[in-house]
């Protein structure tokens, strides 16, 4: 063929490391930066709850029930005289902890299954990916509902249910990364040198999958907080008297309380919305930062 033979790929413009580029892209995303700031504030405030709250979260004070916001009780008190501000802060610890643990469980399961799927291919791959499809199409809230309904509600059931239903996203991501790595020479070299699957996963797949898994992990935290609060709202998650943002709203389920004591339900509701929104903004920003420009339009 009579074609021009010298057309190698155009050299990339000089640039910093991928990590630095991603960080720069993230910092340019105002929503993501705002989300990170808000999230940092929420985490800080809940961690410092014992110093800030001013009241213990679970102490009943029958002389101070159903009081509106005041200097002594910033967010008022509930029907048992417990301080709503203190409960909101301590509830945040529970909601964030459950969210984080459950998301971690989900991406751990997802990473392992995804890596196995990508490394071994064939039969294992087929089964795992088909399972991922099915698990993903089941509404998690319903799974929690049925599990909690039969086994009984608890934080463990909650975390297990979220971990078992939210892994497919991370699983697919890690499978993709694994497949793209599998064709690289150094993996062949490692395999030839007798590396086993576990070693490959730890040394090659996990580091390579870390950026995209961080993205899915962040979004999974948002999802897990939503699921925890939803389950607790339905009375199927964190059990009273321990406060979680969800079960605080559970207590505000009759019209009289909604009408006369808005300080009961506004703080936890706003806390959930603000926190989850912040996590989602951060996750979105991370995704756009990690995905090279032009590929960010997709789903």
């Amino acid at each position, binding site marked *: 063929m009579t074609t021009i033979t010298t057309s190698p790929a155009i050299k990339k413009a000089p640039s910093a490391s991928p990590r630095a580029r991603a960080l720069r892209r993230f910092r340019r995303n105002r929503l993501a930066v705002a989300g990170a700031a808000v999230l940092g504030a929420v985490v800080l405030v809940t961690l410092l709850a014992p110093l800030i709250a001013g009241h213990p979260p679970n102490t009943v004070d029958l002389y101070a029930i159903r009081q509106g916001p005041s200097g002594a009780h910033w967010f008022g008190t509930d029907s048992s005289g417990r301080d709503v501000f203190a409960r909101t802060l301590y509830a945040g610890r529970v909601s964030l902890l459950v969210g984080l643990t459950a998301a971690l469980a989900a991406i751990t399961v997802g990473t392992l299954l995804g890596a196995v799927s990508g490394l071994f291919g064939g039969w294992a791959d087929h089964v795992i990916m088909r399972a991922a499809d099915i698990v993903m199409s089941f509404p998690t809230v319903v799974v929690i*509902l049925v599990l909690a309904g039969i086994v009984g509600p608890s934080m463990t059931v909650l975390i297990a249910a979220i971990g078992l239903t939210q892994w497919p996203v991370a699983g697919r991501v890690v499978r993709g990364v694994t497949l793209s790595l599998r064709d690289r020479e150094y993996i062949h070299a490692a395999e030839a040198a007798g590396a086993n699957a576990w070693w490959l996963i730890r040394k090659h797949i996990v580091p390579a999958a870390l950026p995209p898994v961080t993205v899915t992990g962040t979004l999974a935290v948002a999802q897990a907080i939503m699921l925890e609060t939803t389950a607790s709202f339905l009375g199927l998650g964190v059990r009273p008297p321990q406060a979680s943002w969800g079960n605080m709203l559970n207590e505000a389920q009759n019209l009289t309380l909604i009408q006369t004591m808005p300080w009961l339900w506004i703080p936890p509701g706003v806390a959930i919305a603000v926190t989850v929104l912040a996590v989602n903004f951060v996750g979105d920003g991370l995704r756009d930062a990690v995905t090279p420009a032009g590929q960010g339009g997709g789903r």
Partner: protein
Amino acid sequence: MAAYVIRRVLANVLVFLLISVGIFVLVRLAPGDPVRMMVDPEQMRGGGAAFIEAKRHELGLDRPIFVQYGHWLSGALHGDLGYSYVGHRPVGAVLGERVGPTLQLMGAALAVALVVSVALGVAAAVRRNTAVDYGATVLGLAAVSVPPFFLGIVGIYVFSLQLGVLPSAGMTTPGGGGLVDQLRHLVLPGLILAFVTAGPFTRYVRGGLVDELGAEYVRTAEAKGASPARVVLRHALRNSLIPLITVVMYQIPQMLAGAVVIEQVFAWPGMGQLAVSSIGQHDYPVIVGFALYVAVLVLVCNLVADVLYAAVDPRVSLR
């Protein structure tokens, strides 16, 4: 086409069997005597321990676990899901009367969500990086970030309690009725479920359309002299809506999760509310029936998604 559908059906039947095994195991884990779950309470009333043992034998509960599973499954497939502990009625009947209200809520919400999300997604994709686009992004994120039960309480507080313009509970006013009354009851729960659903849809529409607008056939259409509106609506949108069919079918079971919560807030007499109250009352047969129902719904939606996708996209060959 027929062969393809049959294959998909068989695959889904296999999955359903696996899920039913899981549910069966849960049933056996559940506290309570299986005999109580399966026998008409009217008969149970008179019988003592001997009667229960006789029934246990009759139901095959003293047979191997595989046989028991077969019995249970074939019963479930024939609509025999046992008896509710609370209402003392067959679970099938109890669930059956709750299906309508849930479908009504979900159907209305789905319709609104589709219209809004396609319009908003197209606007955002066409006017990328403008106020419209950022607005759609923020709304889309808000829809998955603000819990629907909180929205529900806010809605009740504002529109029912403060303004007094919309009802806060139920499907109709007791004793009242009429279409307008029903629609007024539908507004708050329907719109909140629609909002929650439209969030992800909008992101899919926008993302899909942005991808398609970058495709080469779009440039071809422009090179032919097609107007921007025609390029977007006739060419790019058509391509981007094909994957949306799958997304919508997969999202319908997820909507059920939203419906569970919203029915709870608005005392909507649907399946979700039934399931939540059944858990409170430890009404295991109903919970199991609900689980089976959801499993069937999920699998049917998956199946419809596959078949519809194949029917709409000329590239998919049905083999």
